[in-house]
C-alpha cells in the first residue's frame, strides 16, 4: 500500500465514521423520544448504516 492509498483509506474511514455517528446519534435520539418505536428505528438505522458501510467498503476496495 502506498502513502496516497493509506491517506485515501483514512479519509474514507473518517467520512464513514462521521456518517455512522450521525446515524447512530439520530437513532438514539429518536429512541429516547419515542421508546415504543425502538424496533422500527433500529431496523431503519441498520439498513442505512449497511448502505453507508457498503459505500465505504466499495471505496476502500477501489483503492486497494
Amino acid at each position: 500500500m502506498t502513502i496516497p492509498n493509506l491517506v485515501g483509506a483514512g479519509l474514507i474511514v473518517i467520512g464513514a465514521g462521521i456518517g455512522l455517528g450521525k446515524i447512530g446519534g439520530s437513532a438514539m435520539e429518536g429512541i429516547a423520544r419515542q421508546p415504543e418505536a425502538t424496533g422500527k428505528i433500529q431496523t431503519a438505522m441498520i439498513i442505512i448504516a449497511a448502505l453507508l458501510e457498503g459505500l465505504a467498503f466499495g471505496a476502500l476496495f477501489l483503492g486497494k
Partner: protein
Amino acid sequence: METLLNDFSIGLFVMQTVIFLVLIFIMVKFAWKPIMNSLNDREEGIQNALDAAENAKLEMQNLQADNEKLLKAARAEREAMLKDARDMKNKMIEDAKGEAQAEASKLIAQAQESIESEKKAAIADLKSQVANLSLEIAEKVVKEELSNKGKQEKLVESLLGEATLN
C-alpha cells in the same frame, strides 16, 4: 480493485452457484415448505381456538343477559303480584271497615230509636203517673181540707215538697 479481481475464483463462484441452487431447491422442497405449512397450520389453529373462545365468551354473555332479563321479568311479576295482594288487602280492610261502620251506625240508630221510644213511653208513663199523683194529691188535699185547715196546709206543703223531688 486488482487484488480483488485477482482473488476472485471463477471455479469457486461456479461451485457456490451450483451448490447453493441445489441447496435452495432441497431446502424449499423438504424443509421450508413443510415447516411453513405446519407453522401456518399451527397459527391458524391457535387463531381458531382464540376465535372459538371469543365466541363462547360472547355466547356466555348472551346467556347471562338472557338470565338477567328473565330474572328481571320474574322480579317485576313478583312485584306486581305483591302490589295486587296489597291492594286487595287494603280494599278488603276498607270494605270491612265500611260494613262495620254501617252496621254500627245501624245499631246505634236502632238503639237511639228504642231509647227514644222508651223515653217516650217513660214520659207518657210519667205523665200518666203525674196525672194520677196530682189527682191523688188533689183528692187527698181536698179530703184534708175538708177535715183540718192547718193540717191541710201542712200537708199541702209536705206534698209539694215531695212533689218537687220527683
